[in-house]
């Protein structure tokens, strides 16, 4: 490998690492916010969202939970995309490490990432079914 190629591979390695770190932090923050605001909203809805008459009542009783449930599908899609993104970054880093002649492999903690997304999905399931139950609770 020429010095220029090594330089390029090293720069790419750093870029992918930085990208992964920034996006992971951003996604985890966003998901935590999503989950906490969902639980807070569920508590508020349960405490103050008393059944009302007319269109306002229908919107409050069904519209709000349905809208929140639809948001959950986007969140789940986000988890899947995030997992695939981590996988892609891992493969790219492994490729670069091999290109540089090292044998250590990718530095991405795949097992940890896997458990992290499992935890996210568990929180997602609890939040989803809490809102699904609120569809029926009057």
């Amino acid at each position, binding site marked *: 490998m020429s010095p220029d190629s090594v330089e390029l591979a090293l720069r790419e390695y750093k870029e992918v690492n930085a990208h992964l770190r920034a996006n992971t932090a951003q996604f985890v923050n966003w998901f935590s916010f999503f989950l906490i605001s969902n639980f807070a909203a569920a508590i508020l809805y349960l405490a103050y969202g008393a059944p009302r008459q007319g269109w306002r009542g229908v919107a409050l009783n069904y519209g709000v939970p349905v809208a929140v449930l639809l948001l959950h599908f986007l969140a789940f899609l986000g988890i899947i995309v995030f997992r695939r993104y981590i*996988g892609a970054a891992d493969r790219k880093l492994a490729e670069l490490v091999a290109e540089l002649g090292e044998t250590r492999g990718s530095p991405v903690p795949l097992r940890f990432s896997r458990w992290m997304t499992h935890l996210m999905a568990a929180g997602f399931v609890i939040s989803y079914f809490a809102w699904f*139950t609120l569809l*029926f609770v009057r």
Partner: protein
Amino acid sequence: MAGEKSIQTGVLRGLARRCPNCGKGRLLRGYLTVRSPCEVCGNDNANYPSDDLPPYLTVFLAGHVLIGLIVWTDSAYGPPLWLETAIYLPLTAVLCLALLPFLKGATIGICWATDVTRQSSAT
């Protein structure tokens, strides 16, 4: 056989717990172990990642059925809590255990149709 590759075909064959590639060979050995290679066409069905999605699909489906049932019986008949627990805890377990192999098959079918393998999805 590869020409018929579609998500619908994969899901239907998977739900029938048949090899998604040929639709003939049995997909699972025992409860959840993937039989690989397929006894009929030789397709490597263990190469499709089906470890994580089936439990989520199971919880998702079983949750909708059970929460609907629980809320309905609770509001219609108001049974005591011990009776609800005695009925719904075993029912939840049985429903989840019953759904899991079928949804594992469906997941493998989706992966087969979309060419998702363990190598292409490292996580």
